[in-house]
């Protein structure tokens, strides 16, 4: 039987769905941390490919990625433009120098491509989180980490309400389109103004929703008992502990390699520490 996650449905026998919340949350956090640490193009490319393949291995429907393709494209364009216009990365060949001192070298292009890979891999990692995690994982995973339940619930609600707010956003935007607004026309300022209208409405809707959620939480006795109990009982197996420790070790290893050995740093750059 398939299981509903924050984002989609995943086959109930997917390896990630069956994992204990502790290693699951650790895995998903470590993927993003490693993507932040690595700055070398080849390892980042490998990580990106590995994450893309894991969609198949973990049996996460690729439809989940579709919604993010446009985000990846916009973010990639923004990254590329910012590095092309405003960076001064030394390279073996300089293609263009701007009056304000910035220049485009072969390393600028390589670094921009590396950053695009970093954001893509982080986006893939985050999509995997949304596509394979339930509010139960967040709550029980946080409890395993001994985090306060309030924080766990807020994290879980933030993920869940994100999808609701996205739906609200689409409805308001559609209402504007139905009254003649065209979001793909006009200058950047005009488009920004149209989106500002959407957000005006979104703020009102969000405030109402937040109030209703707060009522529901209070009515359900949130925070009533000094010590909360848990309905589900998860047994931490040795394999879960091994996976968690391996993942933590992996993140630490990446950190040491990047900042102390310089192995995962961008080529030609000195380690930051």
């Amino acid at each position, binding site marked *: 039987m398939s299981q*509903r996650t924050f984002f989609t449905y995943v086959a109930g026998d997917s390896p990630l769905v069956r994992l204990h919340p502790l290693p699951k949350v650790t895995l998903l956090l470590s993927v993003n941390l490693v993507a932040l640490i690595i700055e070398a193009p080849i390892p980042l490319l490998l990580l990106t490919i590995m994450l893309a393949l894991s969609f198949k291995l973990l049996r996460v429907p690729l439809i989940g990625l579709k919604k993010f393709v446009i985000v990846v494209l916009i973010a990639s364009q923004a990254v590329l433009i910012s590095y092309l216009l405003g960076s001064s990365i030394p390279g073996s060949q300089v293609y263009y120098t701007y009056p304000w001192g910035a220049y485009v070298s072969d390393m600028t292009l390589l670094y921009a491509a590396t950053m695009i890979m970093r954001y893509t891999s982080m986006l893939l990692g985050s999509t995997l989180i949304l596509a394979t995690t339930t509010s139960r994982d967040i709550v029980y995973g946080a409890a395993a980490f001994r985090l306060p339940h309030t924080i766990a619930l807020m994290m879980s609600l933030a993920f*869940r309400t994100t999808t609701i707010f996205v739906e609200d956003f689409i*409805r308001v935007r559609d209402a504007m389109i139905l*009254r003649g607004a065209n979001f793909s026309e006009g200058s950047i300022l005009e488009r920004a103004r149209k989106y500002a*209208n959407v957000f005006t409405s979104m703020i*009102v809707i969000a405030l109402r929703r937040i109030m209703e959620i707060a009522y*529901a939480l209070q009515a359900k006795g949130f*925070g*009533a008992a000094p010590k909360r109990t848990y*309905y589900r009982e998860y047994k931490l197996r040795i394999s879960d502990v091994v996976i968690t420790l391996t993942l933590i070790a992996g993140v630490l290893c990446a950190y040491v390699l990047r900042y102390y050995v310089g192995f995962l740093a961008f080529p030609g750059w000195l380690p930051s520490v």
Partner: protein
Amino acid sequence: MGEAVRIRDLWWRYGLGQDWTLKGVDLTVREGEFLVIVGPSGAGKSTLCLALCGLIPHFLRGYYRGEVIINGRDTRKMRLSEITKIVGIVFQDPDTQFVTMSVEDEVAFPLENHGVPREEMIKRVRKAMESTKILDLRDKYPHELSGGQKQRVAIASILALEPEILVLDEPTSDLDPVGKAEIFSMLAELKKSGRTIILVEHNMEEAAKYADRIVLLREGKITVDGSPRKVLGDVEKIKSMGIYPPQVTELAHLLSRSNGVNSELPITLEEAVDWLREMGARAVKVFDGEHYVRNAGDPVISFNNASFVYPDGTLALNSINIDFYRGEFVAIIGQNGSGKTTLVKHIVGLLKPTRGEVRVFGKKTTEMSIKEIATRIGYIYQNPDHQLFCQTVYEECAYGLRMLGLGESEIKKRVGDILEKVGLGGLESVETFLLSKGQRQRLAIASVLVMDPEVVIVDEPTTGQDMAQSLSIMNLLKSLHGEGRTVIIVTHNMRLVSEYAERVVVMKAGNIILDGEPRWVFSQPARLKEALITPPQITQLGHVLVGEQFSPLTVYEAASMIRLGE
């Protein structure tokens, strides 16, 4: 029976509010009583519910006078967590009450909060799911259940705490007729178990079957308090207070008055059948049951074998073939998730068919921009908040006209005219979020009508509105229809359908299963049952009394077709 609740001279004003919302409410509810609270919008019903469950004054800030006594204790002197164990509350919108992602987790959530031991929790969660008949839904994602199922989950999660008092704030307002009936029959079962039930409800036909007592709240005060028979039997009075009485009660009232009968009025369908038989009622007119389909000129909207599949694989429209003609007033009905909204989104171009075609004014929607369609077809959402995005009432109405490129003097004239028409004249400079829900709904309608569309589509025009507001909106739509415009409404309210629509389209699982004039559609209860629709109460009465060839659509029509005596 002892007292479950006693409210003494309760006054409440919200922190930022100018006026008192509750103005000296006095109310006593006995243990095991099923109390229904009715009243027009803005009467203070929801506020009273918040006071009953302790959110006022423990969570909301404002000015409080008087007292609310629960089981002999003043709620101000109790902790909120103590109150929530005794009083459970279910709100109108179940979606915003869910905090987890499975039905079973949702039911367990309040118990976890109260620190109930796991073994005890397992027993209570099962019991709550059994009593609300959701055991087979335990692994489902709450947000994807039907409206009725969602509310049952919301109720189960409160019942798990085993509260003695259950407060429900309009839990059926978004539900289809069968969903409503499910909730009421479940509440009746809960009453049998001895629970005190306090229900805010607009639907007097269902309330009359189950309530022990009805109180009418108006402008923050209780103005009527009595048995359903006493309250609903005073038809003129409750109508003057903005409440729809059951249709059968209204019919008996009209017949009694015209025939000089002075007897106790029936308040349920079964009672009405007995009452009419006792009075020697006979039908003086029946219908031939002829199937009517309007076919006047070229259609303005055509679906030709149109199918639509959502990205997750859900078939929402299945080879639909239907035409809508100029000047029609059409109601689209069907249970939640039957494809009604998907259908109308195809008309305005928000969705394009994955197979087949949809034509608007003869042109394929795939070849038109949404803007082009929007100049001729207006679409009004169910929730006005999704449609209002400007700061002031004037700006909201002017937005679409500016997009059309009209001059400021023309805009000013059109906005002024439309605001007068919807009863919002003089509020041009008011900020939209300061309007009441009824006013926001009318503004949403005005913001679309100002663009002078030939076709107006309204999704659930009267959800959450009281009788006066509903009538005001429906009469506005009727006047637009009178001007020759095509009006299409999507609704669960069968009373409105029978009173206003001239054609009814019934949908089930992406298919159109019935299409014709209301009388023809409502005279087929077996087919309607497939779509989980029940005809209006007055039509059901005709069916029971005479048969399906006797399908009155309104109370006045029924009164003109029935004679007492002999």
